[in-house]
């Protein structure tokens, strides 16, 4: 066992850091560091910059245009990006639909979709959940009926994150009612510009438009948009859910937030002292530091396990989201009553009005509210514990 990074890994980190220093645009970095959400253009601009460098998809193998990094290198890359204030790249294309296409798509599909994901030209969203089928995916009802060389899709998807920006959606659809509920599901790629698709916003509890309902009314989808075999979509969906492991833990992001939180604690007045001098607050910070360290090491254990990711991998989603939520909560509590104010216009960098408290206070409560989603979306933490109990512990 050796917990030190190899010299090669240290050099790699330096290289990433230098690249970020030279190439991450200041306006983007400022936004991210102030915890203001980047818009579509910014996300695409940053993806293009990474793409030009050959780093568009840290987790992709070389044959598809990825850098072919080892898991630890990927982690280093993500951590440095987060610390530098780079916006999160979009998972839906890069880490969700792409691995499925790579593993189960045909050559034409690979040729057609992967390059446009890599460059950021296509914006993908996810069509999994439906009203009534949240964590219980197998009960989904959106139907695709084969008519000649098309499927006719009817139904409704929901919780479609950033669907309002997307030009493609990957969907689980029901192509058969035979057998078990899981057995009649197919994996379909759908152009969002096809007639009959209607995207309607869902406003989240922080007042933001981030998720959507997507309605399908006799939407014609060419059969060549089917990935793999008809009625085998459940297999691909499970592959996808199992594929993303370290991403769920989000360690890089949380380390960057922890760093900022410590800075805030050193800046934030707390009556006649600064907040870091408040033992009770400091203890909570310390507790979270410890938990984050344990998560980080667990991620590294999973990534470097020579037997491949073992059962420990299943805990990353739970701990990652719990720690993330605790960080946002502590961020809110750090600014205290200044978090009360809800001034949506102040979420723009160039907001000319006066703020309440420090700029850190502006997004604090909204973020905390918004981040309650972490333990719900992507398979609720209750479902994750079911999985650990049943699949890992064999109960």
């Amino acid at each position, binding site marked *: 066992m050796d917990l030190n990074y190899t010299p090669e890994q240290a050099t790699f980190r330096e290289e990433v850091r230098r690249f970020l220093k030279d190439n991450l645009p200041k306006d983007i970095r400022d936004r991210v560091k102030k915890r203001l959400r980047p818009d579509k253009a910014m996300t695409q601009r940053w993806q293009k910059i990474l793409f030009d460098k050959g780093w568009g998809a840290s987790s992709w193998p070389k044959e598809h245009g990825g850098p072919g990094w080892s898991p630890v290198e990927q982690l280093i890359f993500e951590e440095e990006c987060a610390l530098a204030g780079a916006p999160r790249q979009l998972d839906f294309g890069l880490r969700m639909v792409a691995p499925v296409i790579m593993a189960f798509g045909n050559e034409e599909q690979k040729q057609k979709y992967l390059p446009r994901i890599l460059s950021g030209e296509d914006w993908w969203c996810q069509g999994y959940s439906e009203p009534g089928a949240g964590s219980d995916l197998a009960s989904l009802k959106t139907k695709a009926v084969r008519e000649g060389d098309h499927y006719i899709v009817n139904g409704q998807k929901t919780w479609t994150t950033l669907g309002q920006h997307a030009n493609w959606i990957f969907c689980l659809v029901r192509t058969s009612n035979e057998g078990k509920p899981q057995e009649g599901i197919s994996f379909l790629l759908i152009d969002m510009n096809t007639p009959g698709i209607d995207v309607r916003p869902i406003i989240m509890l922080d007042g933001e438009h981030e998720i959507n309902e997507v309605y399908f009314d006799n939407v014609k989808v060419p059969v060549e948009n089917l990935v793999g075999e008809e009625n085998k979509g459940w297999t691909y969906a499970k592959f996808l859910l199992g594929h993303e492991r370290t991403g769920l833990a989000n360690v890089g992001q949380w380390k960057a937030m922890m760093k900022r939180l410590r800075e805030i604690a050193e800046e934030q*007045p707390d009556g006649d002292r600064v907040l870091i001098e408040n033992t009770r607050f400091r203890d909570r910070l310390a507790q979270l530091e410890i938990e984050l360290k344990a998560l980080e090491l667990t991620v590294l254990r999973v990534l470097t396990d020579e037997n491949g990711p073992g059962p420990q991998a299943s805990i990353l989603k739970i701990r990652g989201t719990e720690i993330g939520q605790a960080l946002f909560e502590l961020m809110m509590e750090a600014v205290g009553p200044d978090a009360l104010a809800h001034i949506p216009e102040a979420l723009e960098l160039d907001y000319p009005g006066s703020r309440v408290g420090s700029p850190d206070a502006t997004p604090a409560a909204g973020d905390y509210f918004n981040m309650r989603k972490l333990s719900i979306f992507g398979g609720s933490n209750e479902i994750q514990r079911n999985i650990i109990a049943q699949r890992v512990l064999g109960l």
Partner: protein
Amino acid sequence: MNFNLTEEQQMLQDSLRRFLANEYGFEKRKEIIAAGQSLDKPTWNAFAEMGLLGYTLPEEYGGLGGNAMDTLLVMESFGRALVVEPYLSTVVLGGGIIQDAGSDEQKERILPKIATGEEFLALAHQEPGGRHNLDYVRTEIQKHGNDYILNGRKTAVLNAAGAHYLIVSGRRGGRPTEPVSLFLVNHDTSGVEIEEYTTHDGHRVADVILDSVMVSDDDRIGARGQAMPIIEKGVDRAIAALCAEAVGAMEALNETTMEYVKTRQQFGMPIGKFQVIQHRLADMFIAAEQSKSMAILAASMADSDDRKQRREAVSMAKTLVGQSARYVGQQAVQLHGGMGVTDEMFAAHLFKRLTLINLQFGDADYHLGQVSDGLLKSA
């Protein structure tokens, strides 16, 4: 020792809840918030007619002579319906302070108009950087002939924009070593600037900038430099009221979550049949019940002049209520699944209110610290 409501209390609670259920539904509340006003006139008038506005004011000023236990009933009902009207600022805080420490002239001038719903008050005490520390006051008082000039900035002032009078704290020269005095400032006094904003839970709050605001000796509340006990008692009463409001919100949130899990189907059955969810709700129920007990404790002590006992009871209550509100709020959202994080659900709004109640007048950590430090012999 008796925790039962009197017949009058029971009647008032029933009619208030009926009124709110009929006239202050989720949609109506949204409209009120969207209108961007500090209050909804018809609602306020209805409160006045029910006697709520003078409920705790002395009878000689048009009130009913009630106490913090009566406030508890009102605020619990408000919590269930997420009422955003300026009751806490005007009746509980402002009315309470004037009643406790105002001069006869001040009482006669103001209290009857609170009871009738004509005038509003706001306590402008907290300042930027003070976080939860109640005695953090840097607003400057300068003597100017027989008058005084106030300079400073107040923050998170509840319902300042609609208030006819601001109750403003300050220290001579803004020096931390000087004791605190309190003045009644008319809202249209020159130099008073109000920057209003909405809170995440639909209330209206403001920063108040005092730029050479002139007040006279007659505007002072209580004796010179003797304001901290007045502020403390006023704020303690407000904390007790917030605890009661939180209890109402928790009860409503538990009820709506129970409804939800009974109807929401997953894996072929209502999710309320899953044992993990059952136990979660049992714990949420326990948290709300324990909070209710503590809210009653806070209310029973809120009018007391025994400072140490009162403050201890209030801090104990705010700690447990803050912790419970956090637990109940987070778990209710979690059990609502995706729906829980949408603006459409009343549950999400209850959660937001509960979160923000914890941040007002000292969060759970702060008040735990107060109780903890009170255990020291020297305290």
